[in-house]
């Protein structure tokens, strides 16, 4: 089963042409791997919060109570990457982060590469061999820091990490 085959993008490129047998076979492979992908997608969704908590803790960032802007920013940064990875795996095509958001000052105090590397390590420890194979083509989405989310002005109650990921 060739789980690295990225069917949707390839099909879209066959404009005005007929799909070759190899592409059709690749689509069938995708169909066969879909149940495992869906299961992993749901696992990632369920495990996102504990994974992010672990990474934040490793970087001495708050994981409970009212979050500092730095912790909140780091949590959102990691969550965006986890979600891009999960979707890419599910549809079997790389879906890099597209939104270009303003870089603030907070991230300059954080080691983004290290945050992402630790996230990969935490996720890999928690994934089976099959799950790792499904994710394998997409880990590089977590190699480059994406533009961070904007930190809105803090007004009223500051969310806890639990509230952010409900």
């Amino acid at each position, binding site marked *: 089963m060739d789980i690295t085959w990225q*069917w*949707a993008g390839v*099909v*879209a490129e*066959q*404009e*005005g*042409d*007929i*799909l070759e047998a190899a592409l*059709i076979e690749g*689509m*069938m492979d*995708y*169909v066969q791997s*879909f149940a495992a992908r*869906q299961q992993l*997608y749901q696992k990632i*969704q369920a495990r996102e919060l504990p994974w992010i908590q672990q990474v934040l803790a490793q970087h001495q960032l708050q994981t409970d109570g009212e979050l500092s802007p730095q912790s909140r920013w780091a949590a959102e940064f990691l*969550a*965006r990457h986890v*979600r*891009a990875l*999960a*979707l890419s795996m*599910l*549809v*079997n*095509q790389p*879906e890099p*982060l*597209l*939104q270009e958001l303003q870089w603030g000052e907070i991230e300059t105090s954080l080691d983004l590469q290290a945050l992402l590397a630790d996230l990969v390590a935490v996720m890999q420890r928690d994934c089976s061999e099959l799950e790792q194979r499904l994710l394998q083509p997409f880990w590089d989405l977590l190699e480059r820091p994406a533009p961070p989310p904007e930190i809105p002005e803090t007004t009223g109650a500051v969310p806890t990490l639990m509230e952010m990921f409900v």
Partner: protein
Amino acid sequence: MTALLLKYPEVEGRYLSSWELSALQSYVQDLPHRLMLYQGMVKKEKALIDAVMAKFQPTLPNLTQQHGPLAWQRCRRDLTLVWRYCTMAFLLNDEDYLRDKLLYWLETILKAYKMREQCHPAYRFLGDALVPVLGDEAGAAIRPYVMLAQTMLMG
């Protein structure tokens, strides 16, 4: 809904809703059958286009005088192109693919060259030939895409 139809910028930064996930699942489960129909459509492409051309050519006896000796060749090429985009859109279950990739462009070309009137019957003949050439199931499956092309290109 296909992976293409997830429209990534809209889902970026969040998880798919249960509805989106189940629509994707349903599409993927249906894909082997869709592929089987698609392969049948591909096999019968020549027979289908031949059937359309056989009816269409007598309606425009002066076409080559008006548009040059390659006019029928171009007509066949355009019909084949529309047909292939229809089959691909069917495979992807995505009418937007057909609109965005082909129809907006071809509609403009036909308007610019004032060819809409002349091409009118070809797309009607294409619609008429679906079931006789492809059979009931494949004919019905591809019909919405051919009808979309017909509506857009014939105005």
